[in-house]
């Protein structure tokens, strides 16, 4: 099953590359940097029975190619501090990293100002929490494919609004074992990649997530584009140690158009 999923992911990425190569030179390409602030509320029963709330900075590098269809690549890193307990005495550091590659196919006529898209996203999301030099830690890694639906609304020649919804459907999920630690984790503590990717194909019943993004884009000049982003991420892991997470991210980006 693992091989089958890897093959599907590889085929999807190959298709992205092939499609990207077929796009003509009239397409708009953007490369940019996004900086934002995120607000997190979560409960990870592996880390603690207590709710955690916190905030932190978020940084993304992205590349987009837009013509009729849209190709998006995004690498994100963020970190911050979560607080819990009486008077918020427990402070837990958290670190997240993600890579997303989306291909969105247009469903609308190119002359219309409002266009709708549907497509696939490959995602790799890592969420790691560390309390006081690993005296307590937890993590949640997902890796797989999601459905994405999107729209763009051209306000005028220089402004447009874009919205998207992403729902994962084929994901490998890696979570700590029942007791948080086991011999596998102890043996692999020097190579955390082995732990993070020791996942299993999960069902929609066990893992539910939705990411909703809306952004406003303004073309400042022929080559510079400014964007204001809002992203809402909701995740729910129904396993032995449940996770519920809501994250709000407000960010802004500058990109170079070529």
């Amino acid at each position, binding site marked *: 099953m693992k091989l089958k999923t890897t093959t599907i992911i590889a085929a999807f990425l190959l298709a992205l590359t092939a499609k990207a190569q077929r796009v003509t030179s009239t397409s708009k390409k953007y490369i940019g940097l996004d900086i934002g602030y995120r607000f997190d509320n979560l409960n990870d029963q592996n880390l603690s029975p207590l709710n955690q709330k916190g905030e932190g900075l978020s940084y993304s590098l992205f590349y987009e190619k837009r013509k009729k269809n849209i190709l998006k690549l995004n690498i994100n890193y963020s970190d911050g501090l979560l607080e819990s307990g009486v008077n918020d005495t*427990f402070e837990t550091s958290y670190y997240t990293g993600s890579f997303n590659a989306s291909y969105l196919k247009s469903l609308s006529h190119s002359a219309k100002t409002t266009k709708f898209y549907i497509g696939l996203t490959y995602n790799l999301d890592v969420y790691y929490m560390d309390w006081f030099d690993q005296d307590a830690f937890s993590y949640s890694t997902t890796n797989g494919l999601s459905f994405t639906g999107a729209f763009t609304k051209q306000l005028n020649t220089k402004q447009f609004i874009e919205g998207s919804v992403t729902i994962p459907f084929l994901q490998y999920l890696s979570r700590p074992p029942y007791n948080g630690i*086991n011999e596998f984790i102890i043996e692999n503590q020097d190579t955390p990649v082995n732990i993070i990717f020791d996942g299993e194909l999960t069902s929609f019943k066990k893992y539910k997530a939705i990411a909703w993004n809306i952004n406003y884009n303004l073309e400042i000049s022929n080559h510079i584009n400014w964007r204001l982003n809002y992203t809402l991420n909701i995740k729910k892991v129904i396993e032995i140690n449940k996770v519920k997470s809501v994250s709000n991210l407000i960010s802004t980006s500058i990109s170079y158009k070529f």
Partner: protein
Amino acid sequence: MFPTLSQLVYLTNFNMKKIITILILVIATSCSKVIIEENEPNTKKNNFEILWNDFDQHYSLFVIRDINWNDLYDRYQPQVNENQSDDELWTLFSNLLEHLDDSHTVMYDGNGNSYRSGYKLNKQSINEISKTLIEEKYIEEITTISSEDDLLYSKIKNKNIGYIYLGTMDGSNPAVMDNVVAKLEAYDAIILDIRQNTGGEDRYSARIAQSFSDGRHLVYTVQTRNGPNHNDFDSKTEYFTKFNNSNTYNKPVVVLTDRKTISAGEVFLLHMKAFNNVIQIGDTTAGDFSTLSNMRFLPNGWHYQYSIQKFLLPNGESLDGIGHIPDVYVKNTEADIKAGNDTVLDTAIQHLFNEFGIE
């Protein structure tokens, strides 16, 4: 009367922006409350329930230590009430956890105070050894290994015996023990003192033991609790002594232990006692082998850890709650130390003379 096209576009954009802004605000504030449930209430009873249930679901040694956790709930839960002080609740929790007699069960109040289960004898042993006395009376030519925590080697004064003190298994380069053993190779025996060894990493222990290894032996298995029943454990992971043919030590080794030789210090002994040339002299060790859980948290700010594994000897027996019983039992008293005598070290030196004629 009718707005122009550009006015319409403006109005549409304005309304859309307004709608989106309102939508974002509504979603951002309401989603968290809907998805994340109410936080655990910080009441005395709820703190007790979380603690008791967490142990019930995750602690690994109820069966091995013959603890009836349900009986303890019936005994202690009725004593919890919302009018008692934090100090009274702390005492009640401590009394409950004392039944485990497991010094890997530790509770912190977040204000610098802590409680450790079954720690009375361990604590007492702190005053039953004096490093100053050892260094002044018993050893010479002392070399401290700066790369490691609490590791030194030397020789016993006026004897052809090497001496190593290792106070923790938390260092960064256990292979340095190969060099230490090489330095002491000319002596007829080594006394390896791991009294007050506070433990650390089992892998570190295994690598240190390799410097004295005479072969590859199955020494223990580890299982981690993986389910809600007290007997739910994952499959056994087997651990063997490490062996390097080009680097062995075959002369007598005396390992000194006390009640505070604990955890990875005891795992080290599991390795060492598999070798033919090793004997243990001193007091019985703590009897706490398991890896500690992640820190666990209570709504009132207290936090705690406990054992999550069981270690078994190849014959299926457990030393948890028992410890390593020495081949030659001897322990210091505070009076011995005050009188300038380390009876344990004296016994080891005498044993090497009696058994091997080493002096």
